[in-house]
């Protein structure tokens, strides 16, 4: 699965809203433990093919992102 991570819950929630408005299938999940150093907050899980467009959209809307799309093995 592909995830984008955020520095805080507020940024994650705003990102979720913006991506859903664009029709992107996004789901907020706890940050996977594989991503060390980012133990708090939420990650957005989304289809790999939507990552690039999503990052561009979130950048345009001033959302702070930590991991700009990373694939995690389930």
């Amino acid at each position, binding site marked *: 699965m592909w995830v984008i991570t955020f*520095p*805080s*819950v*507020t*940024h994650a*929630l*705003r990102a979720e*809203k913006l991506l859903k408005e664009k029709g992107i299938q996004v789901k907020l999940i*706890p940050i996977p433990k594989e991503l060390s*150093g980012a*133990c*708090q*907050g*939420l990650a957005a899980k989304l289809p790999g093919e939507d990552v690039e467009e999503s990052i561009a959209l979130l950048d345009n*809307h*001033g*959302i*702070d992102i930590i991991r700009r799309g990373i694939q995690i093995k389930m």
Partner: protein
Amino acid sequence: MEKIYLDNAATSWPKPEGVYAAIDYFNRNVGGNPGRGTTNLALASARMVLETRELLAELFHISHPLRISFTPNITESLNVALKGCLAPGDHLIFSSMEHNSIARPAYALAKQGIEISIVPCSSEGRLNIKALVKAIKKNTKMISLSHASNVTGTIQPISEVGEICQKNGLIFVVDSAQSAGILPIDVQRQHIDILTFTGHKGLLGPQGTGGIYIRPGLTVKPLKEGGTGSQSLDTNQPEFMPDSLESGTLNTPGIVGLGAGVRFLLKQGIDTIRQHEEELTQLLRQNLLEIPKLKVYGPANCKDKAAVLSFTLEHINPAQVSFRLENEFGIITRAGLHCSPLAHQTLGTLPHGACRLSPGFFNTREEIEITSQAIAEIAQK
């Protein structure tokens, strides 16, 4: 005795029904701490706080809602703006109509080596633009201006000042305590770098709510550090907004109530609210001008002012007028200096100040007529 509330410049009252309901709903049914953990309760709470940010962003034409941090009140917002941007050697300009919420922090900073200049305003409270431009120096860093005076309601030319700031590379801070929710504010068109607001006046929210918008690209040092629910392993305060300026648990019930207030404003349309308040103020002014020995302050045309009207009687102390209005007629006003000694100095009303009437959206023409009559009676005896 029925109460007539004419002190909306101090705090608006009553609030729209939706505000009471939203606060009650939050306290009874949600109750989570926003950003603290990811339980459904904490997330529901965080979503509600986010919604208030988004509503405020819509009202002020802010494109990035997360550039708004909540504070307990606009005094804190102004303290953050000044103390978070200015360093010894910098020069700050403000007007002679400003409230103590800016004047006192500025005087405190002056003791630490920050230069301050106070630009004069006319006897109606209008900023002298030429004097403002003349006051700009090499080390000028910031101009701070209240959009509308809390004593006379005088509206300042913020678009013009915004342009001057942009041309000169200065940080433009706007105090919207008396204008937010009543006058149009557009941070982009008016070149506002930092917009400070309070929740409990024109935005119709509860007391204990306020905030600060900071334009993207501008970093402001926080007044306080602490828990933000984010990046907790880092010993440093987060640098991203809104967390950087939001240490400690927020006034979530208040912020949810504020959201309901802004939703009410957006639904009514601030033009409708403005028109009603302007009509009431115009009527009040006309009536008061007929009373002998009474002096009204501020612009003659109510289009040039927010719904705030201060007056004095030649022969009675303002505090006495306000006391009698409440005790004999049930009319709530505010007398004295309104935390704005600079403004009263500009108007020539020191040391006693004036009696201030500030109608709101929920006042009626009938209430204004009753109030005018009451003041006429007090003036006579």
